[in-house]
């Protein structure tokens, strides 16, 4: 392995380091910017290091926001939506990849088709539906429309298609029921796919702005992005300091999740030893 492994290709490390600094620079600027007052942020040319770094933006944000409520709402919604997608999309993805049933092709085409429809066109009808169901200003109203998504089905189907079909036969020969085969044999092998789907779904739900804005009628149902927009964007001006502080706060759980899940993606494949 070592002969063709990168024997400390220093030039590659150098290239990658330059690349990652260039790529991550705006992110770093965002975090540094959260420590600056808005006047410094509006300066041209922009500054890099804060002239007088202070946590002022953060203290302002936390004192004005009922942070706990919004964070809890965002977390509950994102966790439930992610769990729902992981479970239900893998179930259908497996059925589409491995099982034969009537209407299979119709289902797959329908799922794929809705993936290609711009979300904006179903927004208002969806809201009217949710309103008529009495779910406005409720957490279920934030969760239910996103509990399953076609993206997850497509992703799981593609990954499961790559698993050996003999596993199914082996399971059947052993007398396992179809659902048991799915739960005990296939699902454990889907670690990397589930981890990837988990990150992407969580990210989408966590950053969702327009739907929570429209569904909430009172501030107790606001999620984090909605609440942060309240304090940072005015009618005619933007409070960049608060905006960047809010953006940094919002991004931290995502990064933590990313680090945790990415490890699972790599580890997962290595241990399952898919040839």
């Amino acid at each position: 392995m070592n002969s063709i492994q990168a024997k400390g290709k220093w030039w590659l490390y150098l290239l990658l380091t330059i690349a990652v600094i260039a790529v991550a620079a705006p992110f770093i600027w965002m975090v540094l910017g959260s420590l600056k007052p808005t006047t410094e942020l509006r300066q041209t040319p922009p500054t890099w290091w804060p002239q007088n770094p202070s946590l002022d933006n953060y203290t302002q944000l936390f004192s004005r926001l009922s942070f706990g409520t919004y964070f809890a709402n965002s977390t509950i919604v994102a966790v439930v939506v992610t769990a729902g997608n992981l479970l239900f999309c893998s179930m259908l993805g497996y059925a589409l990849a491995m099982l034969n049933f009537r209407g299979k092709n119709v289902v797959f085409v329908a799922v794929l088709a809705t993936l290609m429809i711009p979300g904006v066109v179903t927004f208002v009808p969806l809201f009217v539906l949710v309103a008529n169901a009495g779910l406005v200003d409720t957490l279920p109203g934030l969760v239910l429309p996103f509990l399953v998504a076609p993206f997850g089905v497509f992703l799981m189907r593609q990954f499961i298609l790559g698993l050996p079909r003999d596993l199914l036969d082996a399971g059947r020969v052993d007398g396992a029921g179809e659902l048991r085969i799915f739960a005990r044999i296939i699902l454990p092998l889907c670690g990397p796919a589930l981890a990837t789907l988990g990150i992407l779904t969580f990210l989408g739900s966590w950053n969702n702005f327009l739907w929570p804005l429209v569904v909430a009628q009172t501030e107790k149902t606001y999620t984090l992005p909605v609440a942060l927009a309240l304090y940072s964007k005015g009618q005619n001006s933007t409070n960049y300091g608060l905006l960047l502080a809010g953006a940094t706060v919002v991004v931290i759980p995502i990064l933590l999740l990313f680090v945790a899940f990415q490890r699972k993606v790599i580890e997962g494949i290595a241990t399952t030893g898919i040839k």
Partner: protein
Amino acid sequence: MRRTSAITLAGVTALALTVSACGRQDAASGSAATGKAVSSGAAKGTITVWAMGAEGENLPTLTKEFEAANPGVKVQVTAIPWDAAHDKFTTAITANKTPDVAMVGTTWMGEFAGMNALDPTPPAVDKSVFFDGAQKTTEVNGTSFGVPWYVETRLVYYRTDLAKKAGITTPPTDWAGLKTMAKAMQTKAGAKYGIGLQAGGTGSWQSVMPFAWSAGAYLTKDGGKAYNFDSPEVLKASQYYQSFFTDGIADKAAPATPTTEPDFASGKVPMFISGPWEMSAVEKAGGGAKFKEKYGVFQIPADTKSSSFVGGSNLVVFKNTKNRDSSWKLVNWLTDPKTQVKWYGMSTDLPSVKSAWQDPALTADDKLAVFGKQLETAQAPPSFPTWEQVVTSFDTEMEKVTKTGADPAAALKTVQKQAESIGTGN
């Protein structure tokens, strides 16, 4: 085959639904309606209020006084972000999930009234206490919906110290004077561009229309039933506006995110046209309160008169409110002159009620007084539901006029044609 039969079923269902669309009933020709009267006595029950941004944050403090004066009433304010607020309102109206009272941008009135969502103003409300232009923003098709809450208007900001260097000691009052001043800023006071003007694009109408109104333009014709973009006055204003760009006095290639305040503070662009919120913004950019002496404001120069754009927000009561009387009582209380002055102190929002401007809190500041003077003659665009769509075409054409030197007359003809095909939406 199963797949085709499923698709056929779907297709037939869609078709059936489509064809069963009953078609439009002819709407009753909208005659001006007046609202129902409001009962007297204290307010009671719960009143839900939606307000955007800083107003949403500060309003609960003010409404506590209303609650104290009306025991038994509870005012529940929900603050809404400005970002996508318009979408929130339209979806809420569609699904019948509106509050009792809301703060609504002046340019949204036509649309919401057109959706039959707003309650007409009760006859007892005295409309003459408000600035004329602001009051007009509440009128859709002859009916007044809601009242103006706070207003803003646009003035020319200029660096007094650099103007002195350029040889200007009193602000100009006519179009020629404005151009001369801006040019002098470049030649004698070291400015890169004399004045910052928006080179077309979204919202540029708010910079161009003040000049059109100053030339005496009316944006509607046929008794307010149609758009009127290709009038000689609008043409005159467009040509004047274009000349700033062709003569190099304003920047054609200004960046998408304006750098107005830093450029103003540094003297790179020592003049611009904007509203009252810029006062604190330029002071912050200029280094604090001592910057106050270095700049001034003056009214939009006159061609036939001096006019500007009046914006701000109105307070509306929604038609399907369950607490109509108390809602209107709250609205009336918020437009009481004393409350308006108190609100100014809390939010720096300029009062829409003329008599509130007599209060020492507002007469103390000279710059503010200029805003007050301009408000008397400021105008608003027609409150047609299609205004936003039609003015987009105006903004697009203005971009061509300012950036590529296109012919203003042809551009305005195009805009007028578009406006006529889109219609007023009434």
